[in-house]
């Protein structure tokens, strides 16, 4: 396919949103790392200069991705996967430690984070495995292998330690669901999370009462002829209550105090407002500051470079994980809503792109891309605006960081490249 055809068929809406997000992201990095010692935006000694350099690198990567043969990605996905797993393993020997996590290779001019590469490789490998003609996701064995593809990078990343990045791989389960993994699994996971949260918030007794009420509600008004499944119901109830009790036990005896504090803060378990305020200012310091910064922006924001809390460096890690708080402070609700809408439109657009693929590999990879981007977006913004506990992962296209921007770009544009070829069932 000629270059002109690619430009004609590429999904310009996605490309436009990508550039919009990268641009807004850089503006905010500029603002949050800006100092009054003026220098040009091309000064690579500054963080915004460095980020601009990586935007340039990403542009080069986009050109290369679009120029490569479309079946290259499917063909080399296994190799890429193995390579990236090897690079994760290599960290145990050659890794560079920054802020307590051994997650980087020191390449001299910049630090490479192989877990970012692993996200792309895993999404490709999973798509490849699931789209294989011999794979039947209804089979237990194949389900297991599919899950294994996700679990290996996750398990390699957890000991770095970087639980946030490891969590990202579990998002790829959505791809498997899309391809036919029974929703029963999802229901179980969601129920377990619900039981966990309800137990912490209201205790086992209220949970049991709620359970009984739920059963009465479900079966109380049914026709008499219908047999009520007494034995399974009893078993489920017992299981739920046992799980709930074990949650209490684990929370109080296995968790460390800092974990308890995080959950306590998240679910507002501490009822004494003074103590809660204290926890917010110590354990939840970052989130507290970022919430306050966002709040102080109001509807219209304080304006570009006018964010006082941003200028004063009140929000730690503001140019990386907490970049969204800069948007909140300087651009107000208008800015934050714009970013949320841009991301949502991008995701919905990518879903429709994925759904229109004739080729199974492209569709599954598309879902992989969406899952990965979505979980970053959800956890990051959720944390910054204080509705999720603190889990340090970056906001795609936004947060400062070379590896992150480069591999998110690669992740997205491989899919857009596959999409240019959507009319063909095989490559």
């Amino acid at each position, binding site marked *: 396919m000629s270059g002109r055809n690619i430009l004609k068929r590429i999904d310009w809406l996605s490309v436009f949103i990508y550039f919009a997000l990268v641009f807004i992201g850089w503006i905010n990095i500029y603002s949050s790392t800006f100092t009054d010692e003026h220098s040009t935006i091309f000064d690579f000694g500054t963080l915004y200069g460095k980020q601009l350099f990586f935007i340039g690198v990403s542009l080069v990567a986009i050109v290369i991705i679009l120029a490569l043969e479309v079946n290259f990605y499917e063909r080399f996905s296994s190799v890429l996967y193995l390579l990236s797993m090897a690079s994760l393993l290599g960290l145990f020997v050659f890794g560079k430690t920054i802020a307590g996590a051994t997650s980087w290779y020191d390449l001299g001019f910049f630090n490479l984070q192989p877990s970012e590469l692993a996200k792309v490789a895993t999404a490709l490998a999973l798509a490849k495995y699931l789209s294989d003609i011999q794979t039947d996701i209804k089979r237990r064995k194949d389900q297991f292998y599919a899950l294994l593809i996700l679990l290996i990078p996750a398990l390699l990343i957890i000991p770095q330690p970087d639980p946030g990045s490891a969590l990202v791989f579990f998002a790829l389960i959505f791809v498997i669901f899309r391809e036919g993994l029974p*929703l029963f699994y999802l229901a179980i996971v969601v129920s377990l999370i619900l039981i966990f949260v309800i137990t912490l918030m209201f205790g086992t007794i209220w949970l049991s009462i709620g359970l009984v009420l739920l059963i009465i509600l479900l079966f109380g008004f049914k026709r008499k002829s219908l047999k009520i499944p007494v034995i399974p119901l009893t078993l489920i109830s017992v299981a739920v209550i046992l799980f709930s009790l074990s949650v209490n036990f684990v929370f109080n005896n296995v968790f460390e105090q800092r974990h308890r504090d995080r959950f306590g803060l998240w679910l507002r378990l501490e009822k004494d407002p003074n103590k809660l305020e204290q926890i917010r200012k110590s354990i939840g310091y970052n989130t507290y500051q970022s919430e306050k910064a966002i709040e102080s922006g109001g509807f219209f924001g304080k304006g570009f470079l006018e964010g006082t*809390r941003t200028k004063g460096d009140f929000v730690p890690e503001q140019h990386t994980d907490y970049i969204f708080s800069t948007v909140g402070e300087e651009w107000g609700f208008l800015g934050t809503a714009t970013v949320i809408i841009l*991301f*949502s439109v991008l995701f919905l657009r990518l*879903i429709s792109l994925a759904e229109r693929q004739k080729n199974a590999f492209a569709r599954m990879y598309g*879902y992989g891309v969406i899952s990965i981007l*979505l979980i970053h*977006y959800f956890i990051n*913004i959720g944390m910054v605006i204080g509705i999720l506990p603190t889990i340090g992962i970056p906001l795609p296209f936004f947060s400062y960081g070379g590896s992150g921007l480069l591999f998110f770009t690669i992740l997205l544009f491989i899919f857009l490249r596959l999409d240019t070829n959507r009319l063909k069932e095989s490559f």
Partner: protein
Amino acid sequence: MRKILLSSIIIVIAITFLGRLSYLQIFSFSTDHVLEDPAIKAVYDYPERGYIYDRNGKLLVGNDPAYDVMVIPREVKPLDTLEFCDLLGIDKEKFIDKLRKARVYSPRLPSVLVPQLSKQDYAKLQEKMRKYKGFYIQKRSLRYYDTPSAANVLGYISEVNEGDLAVNKYYVQGELKGRTGVERYYEDLLRGRKGVQYIQKDRFNRDIGPYKEGAIDTLPEQGKQISITIDKTLQEYGELLMNGKRGGIVALEPSTGEILSMISGPTYDPALLVGRERSKNYTKLYNDTIANPTWDRSIHAQQPPGSPFKTLNALIALQEGVMDESSTIQCFHGFYVGKTKRGCHCGGGMRDMNKGIYMSCNAYFAGTFRKIFEHFDTTDEAMDVWEKHMRSFGLGDYLGYDLPFGQKGRIPNKEYYDKWYGDNRWSSSYIISNSIGQGEILATPVQLANMTAAIANRGHYFTPHILKKIEGKDITEPKFTEAKHTTIDPKYFEPVVQGMADVYRKKGGTAYWLQIPDIEIAGKTGTAENFTKIDGVRTQLTDHSVFVAFAPVDNPKIAIAVYIENGYFGSRYAGHIATLMIEKYLKGEITRKDLEKRMLEKTLEAEYAKPYSGEEFKINERVW
């Protein structure tokens, strides 16, 4: 189902995020965030507090520079502690302790090490200061009082507390605010407006430049110079006379309502509440709950007014046409209520209004009171009319002067007695004490002075006030410059005024021997019974000595009320003080040195000590 699962999740997340963001940015957002923003420091430029002058332009309150020794702990270098402590005039332990506290507060920010050095200490220290790194001297301004008097009127300033901060957003921690008197009432004028400079800070609290290039900074606005209506000479003289006595003196200019002097005894030197000894002195004054020097009796002490109140009953009788000035009532060295006899000091005989007033005949006014009530069909109706007239003299309610509210006194109404005795179960005989200013009636000295001014003006008064000029310009506030008219027709005042003049003029007048040469003066004595509990037993104390007067009789320049607690006869302490004050104000000179000497020397301390002595209380002892 599977296809829309992910789309639904995306939409739910978006709605959740937008909901949370609108909660944070739209509903929790407050506009006055500049001062709450930890990233912005406001640096204040305080204008000098306005000076206060008396009515003749004499300085009462100014400002004095004071010097605080400040320290920034981080910048302190090793020093000769002994020499430095010697210069500062504190001991070494205290110095080390203060330095430690400052470091705990903040190593980077300045703390006060030694507050308010005297000028002498400052002079000694100044030249050597550069030797001590990390210490510097900060000049600030303290109130300076050019008079030892008028503490109750001027009030004092002190640091704002939590309550002030919650009520008024203008103030920030550590600022000063007027607490009582003029300093409080005219706080906004005197204070001016501080200038603000906003500084952008980083999270280590370091300055990193002006916020918004100084676009929202403001310049300070000077405090206003004000003149108050007090006559400094008269005020100081009155406080000398008040020596060793408890009570209040209020002198007004009847033609304007200006407060010439407002004295509360015992009082204190306003300079006590300034400087390093402030809190020690304040505690001492505040804890004196018996003499209560911080309690301004001139506006707060509500007491039975006694006989001066008779003049108002006379006016009501004339207005309602129940009597004229020649109507007579027989005094039997007292009068009868049912079968009980109530006494009278006037000597007995037929009394008309003139004699009734200048001899202060209880029987005459009891009769007058009865006649007022008999004039109406029902007691309720009579009570309403009587109350309306009384209130028109500014009694029984807040007067509305530009000082702390004070107390409203009490003019009882029919509801009051209905509650006390039951509906329709009382009559004028039950409340006959009101005729002579006893019973349920209460008034503060300033109310009595105002009542006297209304009589002096023959039927109207101006709300008493303390502010005369702002920056040299007379006040124009209608509340103070428009006359309030009483419900008594001006033509009925003359007989009452003549009766009051005869108090001085006629032999047998209760203040005959207190008249001032060359000045026609009108007044009325009062001797008010009062009670307290000693060891749980209701005991009658020595009578309060009360006097109201105005002078000259025609075209009055001063109206005065003097209330001396437990001073016995009205003509005794209160009468002396009233006549001396009037002479001082009108002539500037005292001709009757013997009277003056007596007042300056005689005190009532022994009388005040009696209820606490543990001995049996002896009432109305003859002291002189």
